[in-house]
């Protein structure tokens, strides 16, 4: 297989990687298996559950729906890049505060979709929030607590500081 590998450059959570990847490797596998960033989850592998959501060049994408070599030149944010290593991101704190995390499997993807919603509109309506997380399935919470958490985060983040 080695011969068919492709050279790519990707920036993941502000760190530049130069890597050789097999053409059939998906971005989710690259993140989890080769870079050890296992916060990104795989559920369905078919674009339906959103567990593998990451932010790529400012947009949420399902990392199971992208070949790793297609990500060449892109800038990627995963859940590991949300906090600063010591403190959680305000969105993550709001999820905990509102009890929006149960089994936690959907949470990394949810948090990144939440970030995309708030990046687009720091003060989103309930409808915008629901549309924004419509690609993320949660089997535990029934969504209301997640919606509440995103509203909570919007308030906290809109309050003054502008970390986003």
């Amino acid at each position: 297989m080695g011969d068919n590998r492709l050279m790519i450059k990707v920036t993941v959570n502000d760190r530049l990687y130069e890597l050789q990847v097999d053409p059939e490797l998906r971005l989710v596998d690259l993140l989890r298996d080769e870079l050890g960033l296992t916060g990104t989850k795989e559920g369905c592998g078919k674009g339906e559950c959103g567990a593998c959501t990451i932010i790529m060049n400012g947009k949420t994408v399902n990392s199971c729906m992208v070949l790793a070599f297609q990500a060449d030149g892109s800038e990627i944010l995963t859940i590991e890049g949300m906090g600063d290593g010591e403190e959680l991101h305000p969105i993550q704190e709001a999820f905990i505060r509102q009890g929006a995390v149960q089994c936690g499997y959907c949470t990394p993807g949810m948090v990144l979709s939440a970030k995309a919603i708030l990046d687009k509109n720091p003060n989103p309506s309930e409808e915008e929030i629901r549309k924004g997380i419509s690609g993320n399935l949660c089997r535990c919470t029934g969504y209301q607590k997640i919606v509440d958490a995103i509203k909570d985060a919007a308030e906290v983040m809109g309050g003054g500081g502008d970390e986003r």
Partner: protein
Amino acid sequence: MGIIGFTSRRLNEALQYLHQYGDETTIIAGGTDVLVKYHERLDELHRVLNIWQLEELKSIRIINDQIEVGSLVTHTQLEDSTIIQQNAPLLAEAAGSVGSPQIRNRGTIGGNVANASPAGDTLTPLLALDASVKFVSLDRGEKVVSLEEFLVGPGRHIMKKDELITALIFPIPKDNTVGAFVKLGYRKALAISTVNAAIMLGLQGNLIEDCRIALGAVAPTTKRAKLVEELLQGQDVTKSNTFEILGQLEKDIAPISDIRGSQQYRTDIARELVTQGLQKIVNKEVGRSGR
């Protein structure tokens, strides 16, 4: 052996690659169809040509009296584009109804067209807008073919393996036209629609001067309802007998029964959707100035 991947950075490079290896190559744009189709069997792909980095195919432009949408324009871009919102709101609405935010951020209009699913959501508005497909190969150059002729069956189109779609083109709708898109899926997000419909009406007052109606997922390809289109000409959109004409829709379509809905159900739903679309137009809920 394993599969062979290649990223093209210029259109010409992609065409050269297809010229040489087209027969054994799968083009990948956003990958939202390809990676589902090859789920857990990616190793069966032979060559993969990644076109996602072809920046030259990512813009929406007005050229003379036409709108040209690059094949790599995503559903998100279509939904957010002022050119599309102002001139073809039905297409913006259809794009906004695709899958989920994540799917709309990757899925492209070119992929939707090349995939040629009878349920493809941008296909009905494109048919109603009288769109054409622009595709190109290295040795035969550029071709522009109406979308209607382009689609020949479920998942099938007239393109050869060395050709690549570069754009979708449609005439800027005239000032007296209004359009509507209506979709019925079985779950709001992420449902591949069971049936969808798009309508463009040219109105002289309340009279239908001309119209195009396109139906999705009721036939092997997305399809115009030509018989009904003809019958509707000259009718008053506000009168109830205009809506009775829609009873003829079943003659226009050949519904297939599958897991997502029986034949009778699809016929009924097609009628219901077109009725809703016309109603939307009558109520001026949609249209060039009405949004």
